[in-house]
């Protein structure tokens, strides 16, 4: 159950508690932060993905024994690491190995799901039986015999994670730590978090699909504390790609660290932000979290199928200004939200969702595509084997326009220039979204002036996409993590510089 869908670029613990008031379920379920680390498979357990295809066939058959029209086996194992360098000490190093298999049965709009962490025929059959109860008495189908399926690959790895010595990871961290401290005397404390994991997955289903792959990812985060005379600020920067260790050669750890330190020091001079409605210019990059929240989540087909989503009944209609085109593209090579196929085995695609202001596509998984008789867009994703797939975004962005970014700023007499955002959330039913500025400046006479304190921006999705009146030619992206129904997945959000008229800003100055 989800009240708010959230996405962000900072350690998410804080936001979760604010965004999802799902009651005490969090008492026993894993906490948000540790879910990212939850994971993993024993290296010795690699053979688990080499399970005999006949066992998978028998599991699918068992799952459909009582009825139902679709069955699937998903097997995963994962190896992950998390290292923390903080206050000049490697405080902890964490290694996780996990494995699991989920069996799903669909019968009309019903879903049965069960998982096992022991991967052998007996356990798989038991999970299949548990999942099958949902379809009791429904019409039966005969599963198609599974055979190896091929998908085009969008994840290219040069230096596999398992070939990298821990000393190399720690060297990158140390360089970042030092670079942040060296940036300015006002930087008093630096925290560098390195996380990586390799998720190997196998999917087989009653449509005959049988496919495997391995997905590496690194998340490298630098936080720097700047202390001024009467205030302090924590700056942050991060990099993340669905790729091997080569990504930390392509983007220098020192540069990431200096960006975090620069932000922290800059914001020591932040003044009060004005409150109320004003025009906002959003700089290119992770600002795309705006459309991720405000438009992307409401376009996910699960709430459309329930007829409660904000965009229900809007297909083919004009919902945004003419210059607004929005795309979800899971095929951008090695981007954080990219895979070769989704967690249901559907080939990744480039999906145009809103074209020149007209709604042309919803984001689907197998279940919602069947319910609404829509194509499968390759967006059936899951956090891990413990969860069933649901419609999720991948790399979502506003397409580049024609305006020069400097012209957009110059033609804005008064407003807020938002250079970077932390994260945001949306209620996909009402369409009310909010997001929080990290680094923002007041605009006066078409120029950036002084930095202002991080403020919340709030509005409704329908209004905001109609109020976009300038789109730049400088499309860029940023990595983040998106939470929905207690599942966290890796995403990218992107946009060129855009201007949005009349957003409500949560400042302290009246």
């Amino acid at each position, binding site marked *: *159950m989800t009240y708010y869908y959230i996405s962000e670029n900072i350690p998410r613990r804080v936001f979760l508690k604010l965004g999802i008031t799902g009651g005490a379920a969090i008492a*026993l379920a894993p906490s948000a932060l540790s879910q990212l680390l939850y994971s993993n498979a024993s290296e010795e357990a690699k053979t688990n993905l080499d399970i005999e295809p006949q066992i998978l066939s028998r599991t699918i058959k068992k799952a459909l024994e009582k009825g139902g029209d679709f069955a699937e086996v998903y097997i995963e194992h994962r190896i992950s690491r998390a290292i923390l360098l903080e206050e000049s000490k490697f405080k902890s190093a964490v290694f996780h190995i996990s494995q699991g298999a989920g069996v799903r049965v669909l019968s009309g709009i019903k879903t049965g799901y069960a998982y096992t962490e022991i991967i052998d025929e007996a356990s798989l059959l038991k999970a299949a039986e548990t999942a099958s109860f949902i379809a009791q008495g429904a019409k039966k189908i005969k599963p198609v015999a599974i055979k190896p399926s091929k998908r085009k690959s969008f994840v290219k790895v040069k230096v596999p994670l398992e070939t990298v010595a821990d000393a190399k990871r720690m060297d990158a961290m140390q360089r970042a730590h030092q670079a942040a401290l060296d940036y300015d005397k006002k930087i008093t404390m630096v925290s560098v978090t390195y996380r990586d994991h390799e998720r190997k997955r196998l999917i087989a289903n009653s449509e005959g699909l049988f496919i495997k792959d391995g997905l590496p990812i690194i998340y490298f985060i630098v936080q720097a504390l700047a202390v001024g005379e009467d205030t302090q600020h924590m700056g942050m920067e991060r990099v993340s790609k669905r790729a091997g260790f080569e990504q930390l050669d392509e983007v220098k750890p020192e540069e990431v660290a200096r960006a975090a330190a620069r932000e922290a020091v800059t914001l020591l001079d932040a003044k009060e932000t004005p409150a*109320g409605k004003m025009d906002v210019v959003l700089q290119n990059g992770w600002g795309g979290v705006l459309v991720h929240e405000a438009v992307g989540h409401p376009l996910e087909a699960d709430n459309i199928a329930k007829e409660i989503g904000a965009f229900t009944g809007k297909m083919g209609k004009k919902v945004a200004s003419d210059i607004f085109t929005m795309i979800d593209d899971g095929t951008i090579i090695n981007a954080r939200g990219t895979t070769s196929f989704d967690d249901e085995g559907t080939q990744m695609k480039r999906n145009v969702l809103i074209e020149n202001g007209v709604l042309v596509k919803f984001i689907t998984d197998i279940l919602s595509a069947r319910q609404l008789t829509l194509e499968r867009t390759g967006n059936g994703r899951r956090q891990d084997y413990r969860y069933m797939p649901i419609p999720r975004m991948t790399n979502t962005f506003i397409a580049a326009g024609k305006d020069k970014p400097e012209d957009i700023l110059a033609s804005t007499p008064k407003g807020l220039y938002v250079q970077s955002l932390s994260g945001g959330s949306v209620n996909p039913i009402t369409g009310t979204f909010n997001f929080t500025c990290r680094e923002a400046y007041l605009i006066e006479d078409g120029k950036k002036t002084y930095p202002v304190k991080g403020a919340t921006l709030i509005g409704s999705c329908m209004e905001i996409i109609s109020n976009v009146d300038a789109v730049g030619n400088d499309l860029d992206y940023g990595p983040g993590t998106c939470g929905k129904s207690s599942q966290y997945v890796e995403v990218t959000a992107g946009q060129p510089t855009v201007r949005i008229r009349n957003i409500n800003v949560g400042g302290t100055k009246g």
Partner: protein
Amino acid sequence: MDYKDLSETIIKRSLKKGADAAEVYIQTLRQLEIQVRKGEIEIIQESVSNGLGVRVISKGKLAFASTNDLNDKAIDTTILRAIAFAQSTTPDENNVLPSEKESTIVEGLYDPKIFEIPTQEKISLIIKLEKLAMKNKRITKSDGAWYSEAEEIIYLANSNGLLKQYKSSLCGITIGVVAEKDEEKRSGYESCYRRSFSNLKPLEEIADKAAKKAFNMLNARQVKTQKAAVIFDPDVAYAILNGILTAINGEEVLKGASFLGKKSGEKTGSELLTIIDDGTIPAGLFSSPFDGEGVTTQKRTIIDKGILKGFMYNTIVARRAGVKSTGNAERSNYSALPDIGSHHFYIAAGEPSQDDIIQATKKGLFLKEVTGYGIDAVNGNFSGGAAGFWIEEGKIAFPVKELTIAGTANEMLNDIDMVGNDLELNDQLSAPTFRIKSMQIGGEK
């Protein structure tokens, strides 16, 4: 499986392989989740999972590894991984494990009856809940009704001879409904989670609350940008408490990253503000006999009538700070190192009722929903999205949406001028209704 034997074996093996101190944390968890919508089952999900985490300290260096594969070979790999990783971290004499043998006695954490009730009865319960919530004519759609339950056993042992375990249960129901008027949609959700099935609130009460949350917000509008009193409903307690919780985390204090770090013993809020952390409440959803590394839980006053009394610690951070652990090592599952977190963290109740507070407010915002990050624990700045009701002359005048509120923690905590009597300890962060006498509200020009 005999987890006592397993724990002892793992500790012995870890010490033999080169650890100077070792700890094992084993978690077994069984869960059931059911979703119904429009009177029909949509999802049934069942699972059992087991996992263990091994924390080792070798020459003062700390590392951790975990696995959900409990065969001997996988466990050996886990131990070796932890020990190998401990070669790379930085030695710190403060890296120690607790040795407390006692546990706090907390009644009512486990009720086996939950798991004896037939699944069909649980399904019927939420079908009825959905029906009750849909009864109101202004409710047009259902987002679903959910039942969930969990049974958890924690085993914890370390090389100081600590060996503890406890069992807990949890069950809960949730309903989500939508009210519509023309193009406008409003959603309302309500949940009830308890340690025992028999303690769940009456369905009528839960259904009614969810329905009201949705339809009462129809025709919500905006107000002009202005300063006014802000009344926090118990539903938005997290908006003020979350940042305070991070700011009193002993590690954030040592890092210099807390706006409360230098305020111990000083006035940090209004005299009406008392904040407590309590891990000992019978049948409490956030109570436990010991914390995530085996230290007894307790009831502590964090802010006493506005005066900051102390911070929260686990064993390692407490030693760094030269104090004793406060029993706040938080470990939500077997694959996590103990962090620092709260039990039931709440603002103590005052005297007036919610109605009294509304009646005493000439003009203001009655907050029912806050979005955003809450208070920034580093510098105390606060900015959030807001929705709720506008109050005029002591009465609810109309619903409001898409407003913003902003301030600083210092002003907000000191400006609390009324604290209500309606405290319920259902969430990790709870508060009665309270009022801040003036905040900046952002809206129309």
